[in-house]
């Protein structure tokens, strides 16, 4: 099966490894990102980003190695060399640092230029009568197709260069003489760890720890309260003590009784008889 690495185009080879590696590492990075979010650290800002990038290094080395070994054995018929993951990772990182920066710069410039050009075209006298909704979509298609074309070319360029790196590793590898069935079996054994209960235990332990950390860090109430919402004043519910309540009621009644008595005595002393009851007030009280 030797010679297959050169038969496969570098773009295809680069895509096969990069695509699989991306999806292999993504769930773990997403989990880490979520944990940072629960802790109030944004993974796209300074400290969060630095932590995430740092923690992504071993994840990426593992993911590139796993994806690379699979492609080498299954598609290329080559025995994967040792430390394939580490080699492809540092070479890929160097490529990203150089080509990636250049590609980002080019993409930004192209998009800005295409946007300006699209606006200028739409400002032409003959196109001024185009309604707003149509104008928005036409402008978007104009600059969007240029941007999409350039982005696609840049991505293909990046995959070509990464594919060349993979190809170099594959050419240095020892061709496998095993038939396809045996290679698939070998590839299977490489993916599935020998001690599966241990792996499941580790996975469960990591999962449980992540869940506990997540709930421990997560804010209980919303971190974004609505400006017009009035938070309930959390008054401690008064505890009813029956004996105290009865005593209090008794005190109130005694006080009321003595007040009434005082008033009656005052009335007797003042006029010799109690004042005639106000009929209207009595009726009102009854209604109430």
């Amino acid at each position, binding site marked *: 099966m030797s010679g297959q690495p050169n038969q496969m185009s570098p773009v295809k080879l680069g895509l096969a490894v990069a695509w699989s590696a991306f999806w292999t590492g993504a769930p773990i990075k997403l989990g880490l990102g979520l944990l940072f*979010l629960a802790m109030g650290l944004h993974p796209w800002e300074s400290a969060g980003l630095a932590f995430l990038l740092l923690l992504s290094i071993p994840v990426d080395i593992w993911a590139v190695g796993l994806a690379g070994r699979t492609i080498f054995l299954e598609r290329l018929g080559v025995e994967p060399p040792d430390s394939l993951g580490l080699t492809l990772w540092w070479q890929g990182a160097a490529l990203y640092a150089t080509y990636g920066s250049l590609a980002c710069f080019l993409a930004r410039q192209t998009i800005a230029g295409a946007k300006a050009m699209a606006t200028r075209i739409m400002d032409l006298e003959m196109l001024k009568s185009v309604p707003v*909704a149509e104008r928005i979509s036409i402008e*978007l298609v104009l600059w969007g197709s240029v941007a999409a074309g350039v982005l696609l070319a840049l991505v293909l360029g990046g995959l070509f260069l990464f594919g060349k790196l993979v190809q170099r590793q594959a050419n240095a590898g020892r061709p496998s003489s095993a038939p396809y069935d045996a290679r698939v079996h070998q590839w299977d054994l490489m993916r599935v760890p020998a001690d599966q209960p241990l792996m499941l235990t580790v996975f469960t332990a990591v999962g449980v720890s992540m869940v506990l950390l997540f709930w421990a860090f997560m804010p209980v109430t919303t971190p974004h309260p609505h400006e017009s919402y009035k938070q309930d004043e959390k008054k401690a519910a008064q505890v009813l003590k029956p004996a105290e309540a009865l005593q209090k009621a008794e005190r109130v009644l005694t006080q009321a009784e003595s007040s009434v008595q005082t008033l009656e005595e005052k009335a007797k002393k003042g006029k010799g008889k109690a004042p005639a009851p106000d009929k209207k007030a009595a009726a009102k009280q009854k209604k109430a």
Partner: protein
Amino acid sequence: MSGQPNLLEKIVAFVDERVGLKTIQAKMLNEPVPGGSRWAYVFGSVLLFIFIMQAVTGILLMFYYVPSADHAYASTQYIIHEVDYGWFLLSYHFWGSSAMVVMVFAHMSQVFLWGAYKSPREMIWLVGLALFGIVMAFGFTGYLLPWDQRAYWATTVGVEIMDKTPIVGDFMARFLKGGATPGQMTLSRFFVIHVMILPAMLMGLAGLHIFLFRKAGPAGPFRGTADELKAKTDYFFPRQVWKDMVAMAAVFVTICSLAFIEPVVLLEEATPDPGDYHPEPEWYFLFLFQLLRLKIFSGEFGQFLGAIAIPGAFMALLAALPFIDRNPERNIFKRPVALIGWILVMTGILVFTVSAIINREFLD
């Protein structure tokens, strides 16, 4: 003593004898997957997972939510501000609905591109289309429930669009609104449809979808020689189960992250006066909303054409697809019409959705 079954084994044997556990387990897990497990096959399982999570979070929210025009807004605010982790549950439920729509699109695209709707899987495709409609209906009915300006006006616009459907449109609009303007009757009806009717329909149809899928068997990859496929053919358990679980975990974490990054924040309480608010539907209906802003779709007939006739014709075309496209070729690179058609539809949806977002600047 060796050889003697322990208590757990005895219980399993007892249940197995009466229920046929081992047969069910064998049927569920030992399904052969032609060509082996693939990441492209995870969408169906992920959709089922999202639905279960939506049901769980929905039930938890119902413990606090009051479906009345007087209390819907206040109870939603209460969930966000007072209930422990209520803001997270509501935000998860909100983003879960978006994830469901994205996954439905991904699943339908995968089936379309893989040619998996072709004979003998026409029925699976048709039931899948019905499930797509139910997912959209879930989004539409759930959007009203918080009873803020966004909810009220999105529903008003949606019902007005529905009104344009010939013959049944007027009845449907009147039935959903339950009055001249959206009010208590609208909220009650949307709530019942959202929490009772649609879940029952979805469970029934999803069960039928899975039954039909198991009956016909997985279509497998569209490339590869018979020998290659045979060498890589595998059972559903453990590799496809593992891939499904990883995909579910990734989707779960993504929804949680979105709930953190962009939690649900309500607008002002719903009123029949939109004020400064520009009504617009949920993001997955934005492309249609923007389409209706085009001059070609202005006027009574234009609105009918854009809102009802074209989407209706498109759905009818999708339903008829397995019966029109009878070519057994499944490789998408050998089906140029299908490939170009898919790219055009996806680009169209993307362009009009982004246009609707840009359009907001002009309205503001």
